[in-house]
């Protein structure tokens, strides 16, 4: 039902879709991360081929003020290349696992992008002027013969076609033995953390040859390994606080002021398991795939396989809200285990005001939950509903025996069409949804 995130007359409608329409999807084109920058003006996507594509929000048309501007390609660059670790005979994938924007401090934009092993800081800058009239070199750049120079002139800046350049400013490498799953920029704008399966490192943005290890859960005997780190994030306004989630469904909040090595947590969030729902796959579905602080910093949200939970940082023993994303899959866990879908890592995100949360599902469905009204909605990212400004129709999965019209049965769901990555504009009701190799942008219909 409409009414999520903005009132009862609120509706989501299609805005744009980016990406090829072919049925044959190249693996390298599969989008692996989506992130708005802090103003919402830029939208970055990373794919499995190691490329980053940045879209920029065009200024609203003056003729038609009721339409929001579109997002158009601003810059494309190859962030990571496939590498080979000769010592271990392992290939390192170039897939971009995460992109995080730095807060803007000057005219250029900076972002961190990471694959399994290496984090890079990219500067995306604009160049729209060029200096002309040098004394020592001519227009082609060739050096002029000094004896030919008979007069001096001052070079003049002339306008040129806008050129967007992306250049790697820092490369943070060789600090992670295991696969990096998260990066998070700290609120001090000077440091950031990177997390792999067993360790979390704290970096300074200016220093690439050193990082501090702040969490290490590697047991002395690897055979005693019982859990791994699955996600980590810095607190949005307390630069000494961060959280990390584990494969056992627990979240630990750590304060960097207590010790150099934050192996002992300050807070431990865990919901007791319901013994009646125990199965072979209980451990897998309780593994947390994403953790996100709310913009206020008061709450955090975790995503496990079947649900999204909102936690109050002041209450550790259970979440304050739990939303079922696709509970109808609980009886299908065995087949989802066989086809590896049970290992899918869904992300989740908050809207700008923390009143709504969004996460993805299968069959190109994504779900939104309004925390105030407790209403939820299921929408689909599909080419069929991709007419300009077409309102998205709510979808429903039938769980009972009788399937109503327009409902889809659980067995008809396409588990290859999964929405793992979504992003919500920090200020407006604009969302970006990654469906395999396509990026859908939806916005609210202004009535």
């Amino acid at each position: 039902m409409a009414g999520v995130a903005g009132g009862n007359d609120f509706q989501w409608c299609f805005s744009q879709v980016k990406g090829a329409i072919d049925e044959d999807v190249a693996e390298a084109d599969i989008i692996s991360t989506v992130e708005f920058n802090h103003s919402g003006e830029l939208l970055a996507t990373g794919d499995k081929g190691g490329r980053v594509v940045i879209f920029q929000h065009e200024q609203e048309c003056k003729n038609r003020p009721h339409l929001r501007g579109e997002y158009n390609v601003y810059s494309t660059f190859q962030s990571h290349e496939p590498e080979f670790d000769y010592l271990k005979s392992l290939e390192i994938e170039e897939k971009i696992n995460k992109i995080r924007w730095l807060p803007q401090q000057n005219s250029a934009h900076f972002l961190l992008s990471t694959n399994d092993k290496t984090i890079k800081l990219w500067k995306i800058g604009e160049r729209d002027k060029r200096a002309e009239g040098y004394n020592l070199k001519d227009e082609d750049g060739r050096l002029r013969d000094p004896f030919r120079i008979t007069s001096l002139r001052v070079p003049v800046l002339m306008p040129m076609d806008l050129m967007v350049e992306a250049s790697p400013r820092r490369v943070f490498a060789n600090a992670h033995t295991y696969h990096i799953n998260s990066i998070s920029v700290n609120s001090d704008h000077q440091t950031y953390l990177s997390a792999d399966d067993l360790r979390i490192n704290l970096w300074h943005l200016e220093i690439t040859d050193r990082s501090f290890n702040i969490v290490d859960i590697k047991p002395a005997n690897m055979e005693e390994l019982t859990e791994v780190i699955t996600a980590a994030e810095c607190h949005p306004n307390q630069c000494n606080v961060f959280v990390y989630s584990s494969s056992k469904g627990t979240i630990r909040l750590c304060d960097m002021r207590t010790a150099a090595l934050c192996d002992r947590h300050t807070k431990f969030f865990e919901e007791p398991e319901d013994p009646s729902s125990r199965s072979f796959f209980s451990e897998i579905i309780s593994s947390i795939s994403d953790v996100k602080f709310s913009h206020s910093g008061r709450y955090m949200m975790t995503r496990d396989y079947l649900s999204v939970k909102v936690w109050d940082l002041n209450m550790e023993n259970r979440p304050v809200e739990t939303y079922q994303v696709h509970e109808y899959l609980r009886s299908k866990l065995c087949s989802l285990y066989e086809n590896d879908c049970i290992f899918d890592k869904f992300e989740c995100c908050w809207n700008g005001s923390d009143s709504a949360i969004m996460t993805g599902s299968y069959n190109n469905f994504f779900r939104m939950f309004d925390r105030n009204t407790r209403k939820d909605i299921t929408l689909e990212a599909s080419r069929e509903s991709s007419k300009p400004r077409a309102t998205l129709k709510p979808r429903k999965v039938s769980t009972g025996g009788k399937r109503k019209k327009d409902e889809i049965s659980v067995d008809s769901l396409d588990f290859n069409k999964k929405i793992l990555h979504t992003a919500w504009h920090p200020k407006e009701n604009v969302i970006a949804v990654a469906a395999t190799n396509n990026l859908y942008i939806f916005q609210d219909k202004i009535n």
Partner: protein
Amino acid sequence: MEFKVEAHRIMSISLGKIYNSRVQRGGIKLHKNLLVSLVLRSARQVYLSDYYGGICLSAQQAREWCEGEYMTSDQDKLIPGSTESLSESDETSDVAVDKQEPRDVVESPAAQHVETQASGEQDSAENGLSVSGCSDINTPEESPEATPTCEVASVVTAISSNCISAPSPSDPNEATETPTDCQTDNSESAENHSDEPKAPQAYTNRKRTAEDSELTDSPTKRTKVTSTSLPSTNDENKGETEEMDTSNVSSLITIFGSSFSGLLSNKEGEQPDSEAEDSDSGQICCDQMLKNLNPWSTAIVAF
């Protein structure tokens, strides 16, 4: 019964996943393999607990039947309680870590039955398996199946843990230890590459170096069961495949049983006889699985 079938299926699927993860691009993913090994362990526990639920009921009958079995069995190898099997178990125990326990259990199974029935699942896991060799028709079928899966789980844990422990740069002690292990196993596996029954020996060595208590239990279980498995594979095999709904899974278990027991019996001349008695599907699976076992050792070396 359905739980057992389901547990079997899940275990074989999990093993397939762990094997496939070795060839995936980007290296072995620790998180996914940890989850798969947890599922494997859960399935194994369900399978074993379901199995022991049936054992406890027939303990009395099993004991009487067992003593009769020792006298009348025509099988010349690895019969529990007989003098021949005692010599066998001596040989097998030379290979395993815990020499005392298996011999004690094998020598006096009747006395052990009464004790073990009262003990917890951990103990019953060990002793029940020796009981299984001589109890009614269901249990011999399950004994080779149960232990190989224990071994498989521990093998899997060992492999994944060793694969993971090798590349740690911040732990120099570990880094030096595990390559040595890898090298030892590599030389063994390289030598024995063509010799199928010996390929699992790489894993035997690995389990010996493990400090985890769970892993040290498994060699114990293995030696006990292998002393009972061959009679069952020889004369019960055809009956087993009829009883089990998933024949390929039973073949998987039989393969593990025969391959590990072949290793431990040290009578490789007789090994082909027992394998020849496997069902056709078992033989095919046997070849496939044993081929699959060899690359695992190279995976360890890679890490």
